[in-house]
């Protein structure tokens, strides 16, 4: 298997944690709320999922538990940021610290233990194509994530739900005046973002690298938040961005395998450096951000 085949085969799986968390954050932000606690939500989901699988609960139950626990923590965010109109940046940071602390606390006795991942499901015919065949051999969660991506895209493209979320994010006062429940929509968007971050963490700890280590999310929650900016709040672009970061994180593995003599720390920091560079390139186009950005992002709603 050469490096390109290796990256193509693994890209979607590596991208899935980024994709799930970023799509959740996109929905939250579209409703006008900036939740910077994704890293902590993912960490909590990851440890809960790991504990469930380790004790024989199975992967399905693990994802349910991870989604629920991260949703609960995101509702704490909603309680403080919406209920008390707190600074969303500070609230998100607090949720991030709390989530990472809880994950370290719960995961203490599971440190460096491993579980079994999930088998891959191949699409007959397509998976036999040379070079790109690996793309069509993925585990069930990757396939479901792709479906979820389509569903979220369709929701914003075609449905009234999508329109209401956007209205609440663009101009909450007008949305309220028309009669839409701004706070309820925002709480739901926050909860959805929390659930997706929980799934993302679960995928990281029980499927992608099925082991528990404190700090294993390793900045992926933050990269997911950056992905929402890269993707300019658009589902399709966020999907492409997630694939890019999946490929970048595999590139460091591939580079080590091909015996490229680079310090491993440089390769480990590659995703962060790429994030900084891409963030600079995309943000420099101020019109693009203004055009697609969410007008009331981060501002508390007051009647």
């Amino acid at each position: 298997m050469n490096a390109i085949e290796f990256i193509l085969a693994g890209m979607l799986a590596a991208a899935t944690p980024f994709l799930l968390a970023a799509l959740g954050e996109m929905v939250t932000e579209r409703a006008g709320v900036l939740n910077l606690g994704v890293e902590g939500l993912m960490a909590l989901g990851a440890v809960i999922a790991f504990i469930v699988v380790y004790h024989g609960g199975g992967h399905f139950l693990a994802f349910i538990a991870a989604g629920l626990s991260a949703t609960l923590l995101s509702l704490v965010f909603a309680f403080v940021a919406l209920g008390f109109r707190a600074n969303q940046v500070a609230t998100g940071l607090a949720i991030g610290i709390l989530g990472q602390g809880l994950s370290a606390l719960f995961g203490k006795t599971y440190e460096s233990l491993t579980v079994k991942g999930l088998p891959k499901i191949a699409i007959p015919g397509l998976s036999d194509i040379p070079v790109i065949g690996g793309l069509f051999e993925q585990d069930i969660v990757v396939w479901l994530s792709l479906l979820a991506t389509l569903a979220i895209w369709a929701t914003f493209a075609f449905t009234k739900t999508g329109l209401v979320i956007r209205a609440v994010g663009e101009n909450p006062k007008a949305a309220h005046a028309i009669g839409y429940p701004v706070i309820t929509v925002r709480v739901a968007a926050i909860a959805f973002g929390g659930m997706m971050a929980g799934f993302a963490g679960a995928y990281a700890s029980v499927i992608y690298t099925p082991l528990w280590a404190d700090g294993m999310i390793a900045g992926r929650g933050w990269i997911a938040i950056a992905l929402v900016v890269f993707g300019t709040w658009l589902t399709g672009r966020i999907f492409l961005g997630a694939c890019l970061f999946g490929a970048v994180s595999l590139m460091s593995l591939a580079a080590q395998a091909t015996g490229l003599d680079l310090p491993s720390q440089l390769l480990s920091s590659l995703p962060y450096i790429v994030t900084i560079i891409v963030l600079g390139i995309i943000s420099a186009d101020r019109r693009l951000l203004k055009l697609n950005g969410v007008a009331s992002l981060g501002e508390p709603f007051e009647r």
Partner: protein
Amino acid sequence: MSSFALPTLVRRQRASLKATLIAPPAALAVAIVLNLILYVIMGRDPLAVLHAMILEPFLSWASFSEVLLKTGPLLLIAQGLAIGFRAKVFNIGAEGQFILGAIFASAIPVWFPQATGGWIWPVMLLLGAIGGALWASITAFWRVRLNANEILVSLMLSLVAAQFLYYLLLGPWKDPAGFNFPQSVMFQYDAMVPTLIAGTRLNVSILIALALSIVAWVFMEKSFMGYKLQVGGLAPRAAGYAGFKESRAIWLSLLIGGFAAGLAGAAEVAGPLGQLQRSISTGYGYAAIIVAYLGALHPIGIIISSVVMAVIYIGGDNAMVSANLPIAAVRVFQGSLLLAYLIAVAFVRYRLEWPHKARPATTGSTT
């Protein structure tokens, strides 16, 4: 409408000074109670934890001097960050600026282990501050020139800084006689900040932190530049009309934050550690964000809140030994403390109004 009685927040005519002063201790009390409940659920003796965390740090001079030792870096970093936060520049990458400060300061004892003289430690501290400011300047450039979000850029740079530190400690700066541990050589005597009180590890850097706190107070409360920063944070449009440049506020906020964090990093390696190690920071850069908020972003408040946070650190270490509490409990406490504070501080600008008191017919606010 008022079928179920949820109270609503009503904006006060003017900010409440009383609520400002009550919010931090109230948040602390709530956080303590919530975390004690968590410890009970975890099967720990809450009174033993309470004793180890809150009382023990004060019970002996030896442990209180350790509290003051931890206060130093927290105080320095938080003072720097608070200036930026007041200007609404969210530098959350102090952790990375701290690491770069430690690295810059270590360059002297690592490259010149034989050097002697009283000039060494002050130069190290200065180098560290410059290192932190340089690292922060990347974020400032990205924000001002490329319009990139400073929260994400500064955080990513912290993750890069940690990898850079590991690279140095596993590669070029590894102590050849260090049994392959990821650490530098032990610093020579002149590369250490002088001890303040014999028999303790408390050193001159706490005095520097206090002196700079006074400088921060004068800067924010008395200087025109500080005033411009605050206006920029409170009313960006007004600041724009008055000709206060946003780009200048961003540069200044980040350079000050990076300078202070870098200085703290330098003081840590040249103080209690005496060498560059993998674990030079136990999350000071993130804890300092909480310290800054808990101190109401005010230089005097931050002096008090940094001592509180240092007590939590030392108390957490105590509780790990005496009550078998995992050290992660400190992070849980920190997160819940900030959340409790953010709720408490809402009452500075708002008051709660219960539905049965409100008269919908006369007040325009309930519709």
